[in-house]
């Protein structure tokens, strides 16, 4: 995904005029993003975007607002918007991270997200930006997905990054589930087979 595609996908949305104004305002006055970011869903809606699979209108609008921030101050603003965001704002920040020129500066936000019990935030933390999660934290997060019933399809680059240690951890969980007579998800079984 890229911001250009998100802007095109938003074109039919009723809030697109509001959004273009907002992007201009953030360019001129970066601090104005605080109120605009919170209000994006009320102006642009929250429906899934047919032109951008996996994205909703509010998420796309928030990415475009973030894209208008000055590069030199981007990391500070992103951190602030995540930390003071409601669940939808946090989710939008996490989804925006791989699209922003921010390097690894926002990695601490991933750690925060995988500590939550909100399945949407945990899943979003395991997108492409998760290359900035260290391997131990990444394994824990993947295992947490299995535990929480989040499909492993949300994990970006799973096959390439899964290792023997992750397989051993998943095997332990499978044994516990079996002992309890509880189901172990098929996608996690497939992960085990691939890694052993």
């Amino acid at each position: 995904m890229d911001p250009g595609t998100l802007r095109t996908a938003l074109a039919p949305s009723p809030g697109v005029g509001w959004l273009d104004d907002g992007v201009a305002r953030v360019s001129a006055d970066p601090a104005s993003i605080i109120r605009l970011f919170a209000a994006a869903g009320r102006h642009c809606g929250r429906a899934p975007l047919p032109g951008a699979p996996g994205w909703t209108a509010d998420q796309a609008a928030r990415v475009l607002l973030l894209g208008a921030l000055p590069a030199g101050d981007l990391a500070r603003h992103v951190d602030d918007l995540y930390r003071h965001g409601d669940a939808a704002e946090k989710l939008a920040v996490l989804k925006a991270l791989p699209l922003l020129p921010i390097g690894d500066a926002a990695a601490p936000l991933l750690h925060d997200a995988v500590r939550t019990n909100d399945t949407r935030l945990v899943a979003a933390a395991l997108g492409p930006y998760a290359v900035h999660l260290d391997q131990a934290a990444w394994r824990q997060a993947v295992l947490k997905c299995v535990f929480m019933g989040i499909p492993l399809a949300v994990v970006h680059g799973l096959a390439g990054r899964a290792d023997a240690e992750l397989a051993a951890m998943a095997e332990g969980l499978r044994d516990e589930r079996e002992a309890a007579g509880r189901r172990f998800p098929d996608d996690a079984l497939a992960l085990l087979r691939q890694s052993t």
Partner: protein
Amino acid sequence: MRIFDPHIHMTSRTTDDYERMAAAGVRAVVEPAFWLGQPRTGAGSFADYFDSLVGWEPFRAAQFGIRHHATIALNPKEANDPRCREALKLVPRYLDKDSVVAVGEIGYDAMTPEEDEVFAAQLELAVDHELPALVHTPHRDKARGVERTLAVVRASGIGPGRVVVDHLNEVTVGAVQDAGCWMGFSIYPDTKMSPSRMVEILRERGLERMLVNSAADWGRSDPLLTLRTGEAMLAAGFSDDDVDRVLWRNPVEFYGQSGRLDLSETAAGEATFEGSSILRGGS
């Protein structure tokens, strides 16, 4: 019976409550920010509390198909503690959040000068942010508290139709009705108000601008007393439509003034993937 509880502190309730509420017909709630049993010692504690009201708690409610909204404010009791007073600066940012449908609970606890100041400042925030206001009335010295509350509301310039004055009883309802504000009633197991007394008030004063809530929290309280009140209304001869008006359409009308109520279906597990950690017993 579809039920919208316009005042309930779910933070203090368990998932069992959510389950029972959903089964009883509760489909939407508003959770006002208030005090917890334990006094807080600083603004950071409020930030975590407010975050939870716009983050974790709506997620938890959605697991049970219940729409969760919040009202945000520094409550009057803790407005008296200079360490907590800083939390007032946090309030405006939260008032911009999608699920925040009013400023509240504001009002009086012990009617101190500090409370005067914080009450007036937050009514001003409600005007600035074009939000309704939820006003708590004191448990002690209630009649004079309500009088003073209504004077402050009048002086603030907020429209009376955008204000609910809560925790009313037979003695205090008249002044609030005359002022044109909405009237809130907290149905409690043995204090504030009971379902049968509530039915009497509705008989006498009509259904317009009437809000019935459980105000369930960490004290002895019952989140199903909204349902019990609906049942008591039916038993007393009110129609299904009357009950729907009081328990659903009235709160929708009042909080709908925020322009932010979202009552779209929470599809089973919308906020989850194939069920959730809560339903499955935690992680």
